[in-house]
């Protein structure tokens, strides 16, 4: 598969959120605004690319019986690295994403790509696969974040175009389920059936 295809397939055809339904917890929890969704996507992208590369390197020497624990430790290492970097350079983003940064460890997208792709492909291909899937995840989270921010706070990326509060329910828990549900319906109707 060409490098270009590796990147584009994660965006629509194998979109981790709308098609594969992976990583639902951060998708619902962190998309209260466009900027939060975007940051969460990029944080996951970071871990995904590094862990994919590391796992494609070590996969040949890891005994089959213990490969899952080994992969989880590798992923947890990169997540810890990410926590340090975010605390140092973007503490406000780290504070608003909170618990969901350490929880990237148990995000099934990361372990899923390690199992399904990185452990049997070259390091370069694995890196591109990580970028593709990570971008697909970032794109979906940003779109959900934009919709929820418009409906819930009447703003886009923090720029307010409506006076007043907007429909608060969309920033809170029910809005997350409803927006993702309806976006999935639109995706099924117009994108997936081609």
């Amino acid at each position, binding site marked *: 598969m060409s490098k270009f295809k590796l990147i584009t397939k994660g965006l629509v055809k194998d979109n981790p959120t709308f098609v594969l*339904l992976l990583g*639902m*917890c951060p998708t*619902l*929890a962190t998309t209260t605004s466009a900027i939060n969704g975007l940051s969460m996507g990029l944080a996951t992208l970071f871990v995904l690319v590094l862990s994919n590369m590391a796992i494609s390197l070590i996969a040949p020497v890891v005994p089959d019986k213990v490969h899952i*624990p080994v992969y*989880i*430790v590798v992923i*947890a*290492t990169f*997540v*810890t690295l990410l*926590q*340090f970097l975010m605390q140092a350079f973007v503490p406000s983003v780290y504070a608003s994403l909170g*618990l969901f940064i*350490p*929880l990237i*460890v*148990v*995000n*099934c997208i990361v*372990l899923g790509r390690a199992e399904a792709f990185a452990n049997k492909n070259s390091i370069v291909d694995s890196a591109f696969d990580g970028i593709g899937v990570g971008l697909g995840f970032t794109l979906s989270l940003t779109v959900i974040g934009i919709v929820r921010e418009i409906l819930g706070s009447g703003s886009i990326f923090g720029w307010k175009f409506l006076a007043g509060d907007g429909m608060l*329910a969309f920033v*809170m*828990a*029910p*809005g*997350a*389920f*409803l927006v*993702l*549900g*309806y976006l*999935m*319906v*639109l995706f*099924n*109707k117009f994108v997936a059936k081609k």
Partner: protein
Amino acid sequence: MEILLIIVSAIFVNNIVLAQFLGICPFLGVSNKLSTATGMSAAVCFVITLATLVTYLINKYLLLTLGLEFLQTIAFILVIAALVQMVEIVLKKVSPSLYQALGIFLPLITTNCAVLGVAINVVTKEFTFGQPAHMLGLGEAVLYAFATSLGYGLAMVLFSGLREHLALNNVPKAFRGVPIALITAGILAMAFMGFSGIA
């Protein structure tokens, strides 16, 4: 009084699935049938309570005394993975019938973010429960974890009941499967928002 507040707040007000978005994967994945949902909830309840007890002690007596708090994420996930394995082995020996009933759900729990989420939450966040904000003691932490997992079970059982009814209805094609489940969950979450004035 405080005990009651912890229980009500963890089960209803801050429901782990419908208000905190933890453990969504099994919430959507195994909620098709009431019986499997109950089995999963029982397994999760068991592991969350046990994992919180063990990680709390490890954090307090090992990581904090040695100044290794930054290893929290790695240490906790390893403890949870080992614990799930151990629970599986012990159950197989001690109570084969319960082991049979929980079946495939046990290994899946390692990657259920509700377990790691609760374990990290109780050692890093300050809670109020009608008192000034404070870090939880061991007893409170375990009680909070147990009540949270009961809330998980409540959400699972309610949702799977709804989905059993949904399966009998004629749903428009684009809505079938996960989209209608998500919309149902949204309405359920709206109902749970009604509890937010209590505690």
